[in-house]
């Protein structure tokens, strides 16, 4: 078509979630038609993000600072930690502005079928945070999938020795629903309706 550079661009774009080959070609065309206003600023933003964004060593969030801006925000309630599966869920909760405490990103859920076990989860830093003290409640905001529910149950069991209140986001999340696809109202209701256990 237009040389290996364009092919490479389309190929990389088509690997992004939500973009198949057809939409990748469309996106590439839009970028290439306006190099000064679209393509180069995007390349620059990607370059900068790639150099500075890293995983927060405390909570697993993505930020250009470590610890991240949420972990270091004095206005947040450090006694409540909300455990989520991925950074996407953290973003969804932040967008909905329903949680005033800190987060912990687990980086996945247990999945016997996909071969993801306890050792694959970002668990150790969470246990260290609890050992440090000062945490009163842990909210498990994992998706309402079988793996999410199983992980929440398993995690509640693991957190028991720390003597913190463990609550689960229960109602309002339809079965099979992932947190980051819920609208803000549903998310808020789900977090309000968390129950002990």
């Amino acid at each position, binding site marked *: 078509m237009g040389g290996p550079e364009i092919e490479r661009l389309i190929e990389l774009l088509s690997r992004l979630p939500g973009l198949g080959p057809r939409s990748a070609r469309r996106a590439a065309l839009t970028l290439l038609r306006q190099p000064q206003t679209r393509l180069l600023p995007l390349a620059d933003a990607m370059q900068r993000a790639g150099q500075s964004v890293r995983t927060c060593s405390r909570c697993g969030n993505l930020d250009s600072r470590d610890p991240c801006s949420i972990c270091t925000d004095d206005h947040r309630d450090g006694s409540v930690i909300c455990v989520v599966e991925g950074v996407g869920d953290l973003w969804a909760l932040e967008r909905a502005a329903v949680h005033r405490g800190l987060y912990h990103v687990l980086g996945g859920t247990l999945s016997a079928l996909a071969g993801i076990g306890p050792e694959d989860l970002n668990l150790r830093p969470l246990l260290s945070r609890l050992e440090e003290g000062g945490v009163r409640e842990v909210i498990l905001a994992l998706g309402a999938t079988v793996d999410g529910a199983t992980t929440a*149950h398993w995690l509640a069991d693991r957190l028991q020795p720390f003597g913190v209140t463990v609550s689960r986001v229960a109602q309002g999340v339809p079965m099979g629903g992932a947190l980051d696809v819920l609208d803000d109202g549903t998310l808020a209701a789900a977090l309000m309706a968390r129950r002990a256990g």
Partner: protein
Amino acid sequence: MSASPPVLLRRLSLGGFRSYDGFAWSDPGRVSVITGPNGSGKTNLLEALSLLVPGRGLRGARLAELPRGGAGHWGVAARFSHGEDGFDLSTGTTAETAPGRRVFRLDGQPPRHRGAIAERLSAVWLTPQMDRLFTEGPGGRRRFLDRLVLAAEPGHATEVAAHDEAMRSRNRLLGQEQPDRAWLAALEASMARHAVAVTAARRGLVSRMNRRLQDDPGDADGFPPVRLRLECPIATRLDEHPAVAVEDWLRSILAESRAIDARAGSARHGAHRADLFLSDARSGQDAALASTGQQKAMLIGAVLAHASLLAELAGEAPMLLLDEPLVHLDAHHRLTLLRALAAMPSQVLLTGTDPEGFAPLAGVAAFFRARQGPDGLSTLEATGAAE
């Protein structure tokens, strides 16, 4: 309860599906009869509609069997009306669909959650393969029951899928050298929770259908009044204990049977062990021991009773897809069936080899003939009333 207007099929389009491509069918009527020789594509049409609800459709086909010529992408798109209202529902695969999956679109959007489609459309079917329902293993009977339950409880398929996923996960974990015990306990808790939900829904439908069949056994010479019996230890427990107690019980027996289950590679307890039995309410005869014709009559009797129960409870009956319903039925039962379908407040599609048997539906049904052309593509032609 006041009757809501029926959900009616207004338009069906098929692309690259089985023997159909570039096919569009508009206003098939509330009752449509599709006739044609074997291989003309009439069952494919019913199968396409059965795939608009979650599951593997009326043939239980694997996804790889669905595209025309065994390769490429396929799509089934339908428009339904619901009184003044309506919705578009489609399914199929595209270049962007993950392998082994098909996608749904409800009014052009991915469904918001897994039960969203079942809230709009339910379908129940009978196929010639189901003539062996009572002589084969319990899996087919369980799927038949679950299809009936799903029409009443849109969340049922999700619960069944969640139960089976938790069960498969537990089986996998039990196959490991030293499985994490807390993880196993968590999976057993999931399994128990979903098993109790699934069983409660099955049990609820069976008892409502039995009550209805008892109150209204139909006319003495119609379909035999059937009695349904759910055979499942979880259901038996639910007769006497609250759901939470049954969940605790199931969790503890799952924990106790880990060693046995690990050796067997499967779970001894759970909602996947349930079975459904049908018997003639008058004679008490079990369906498995009845003649093929009697079995078919009992099955149809159950499907009709279910449709009228739902019409009464929800004001709406499921779409009925009956593939070769007249085969094995005597003349009397044929007439009873067709009269019942004529009075049914829902979309009904029927197939048969010849239109003659459907003559009692003249004036009620629209008649079509399926043909397969020299290019292998099926077409449909309106033929007017049967003679």
